[in-house]
């Protein structure tokens, strides 16, 4: 019989390593995909996801069963991934400035514009969009991943990111527009 997250956590808190291994197996794909969309490459994503689980293990005693374990774990994963993304994007103008003052701070457009004679197919377009998620400011990558890829609710995202629901909605609105803008700039340079 499959144990619930809460039961596995309780066992892990009592020192059961197999229980924690089961927790990893259960959540590694979600955590890895979340990290991948935020940091943008497999190597960093794998590192961030592993780091998230190690941090979760160390903080396991502080987890209280009144919260949902997956939300608690995602919060750790998002924070680790955001830190990693920021570290690897230090060459980009302040991400926080872009987040706080979205309208005035222009997004950094990566230099990968298509040449005029290049024709973009649907699969290429989809790949382009997916790649561009990681080019967004990290918190935008996080909300767009959680909402549109992992199908989390506003409540879950708000709890994970420790933000009011209104802010989550605003981030999501801006994230979609920013992503659209990035894609448009690549497809129609200049």
């Amino acid at each position, binding site marked *: 019989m499959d144990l619930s997250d809460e039961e596995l956590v309780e066992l892990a808190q009592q020192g059961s390593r197999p229980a924690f291994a089961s927790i990893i197996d259960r959540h590694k794909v979600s955590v890895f995909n979340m990290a991948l969309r935020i940091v943008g490459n497999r190597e960093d994503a794998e590192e961030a996801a592993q780091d998230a689980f190690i941090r979760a293990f160390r903080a396991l005693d502080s987890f209280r069963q009144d919260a949902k374990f997956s939300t608690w774990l995602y919060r750790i994963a998002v924070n680790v991934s955001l830190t990693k993304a920021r570290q690897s994007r230090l060459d980009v103008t302040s991400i926080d400035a872009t987040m706080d003052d979205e309208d005035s701070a222009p997004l950094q457009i990566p230099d990968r514009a298509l040449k005029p004679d290049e024709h973009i197919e649907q699969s290429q377009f989809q790949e382009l969009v997916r790649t561009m998620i990681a080019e967004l400011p990290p918190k935008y990558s996080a909300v767009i991943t959680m909402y549109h890829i992992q199908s989390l609710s506003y409540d879950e995202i708000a709890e994970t990111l420790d933000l009011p629901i209104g802010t989550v909605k605003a981030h999501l609105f801006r994230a979609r527009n920013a992503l*659209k803008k990035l894609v448009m700039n690549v497809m129609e340079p200049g």
Partner: protein
Amino acid sequence: MTCKSIQRLLHEAFERTLTSEEQKRVDGHLGACEVCRADAVLLKMVVQAVETTPIAQPSEAFTISVMDHLPMPIRLFGFIPMVVFRSVMIPLGVAAAVLIWVYRTALISSVKAYSVFDVESSQVLLTLQQTYASLQAMVGSAMAYLPVNQISSPEENPFVSVAIAIGVAFVMLRMVNGFESPEWELEMDTEYSG
């Protein structure tokens, strides 16, 4: 209806079904505004691309790799989990320290009463003094670890818990005793100086 309000509705359409009235307004505006129409098409394509993102798999060795990097299991004598250790052993340790302190005179007298120790009573006292010195050293360790952070937390270092428990108990006992040296220590001093 302005382009901006249409934009809002286009985004809201990803989260909820628009009312027939709202849908009518959006359709009407898109029919007349080429910019918004192109924008709506691109937005829909972008969101569709995001939503059909294939699920990536982490490496096969992911779980093993994480497990290899976890701190060693915190168990006492190989089987008592740390959570039990902390909740049971520390209070017991403190209680034991209190009892030993309270009955120290009687304990020393009983140790001395055994003939086998009589001949080596100075050795027994020396051992006691060494234990006393160890306790003082543990107080030092406890003090060093008091600003406990994530890295030197009891989860990773069970000796931190032990040192803190013994250290705190020791300091409390010394306070109760008015920071006077215990009788056996004075006895030792007299013995060595004499």
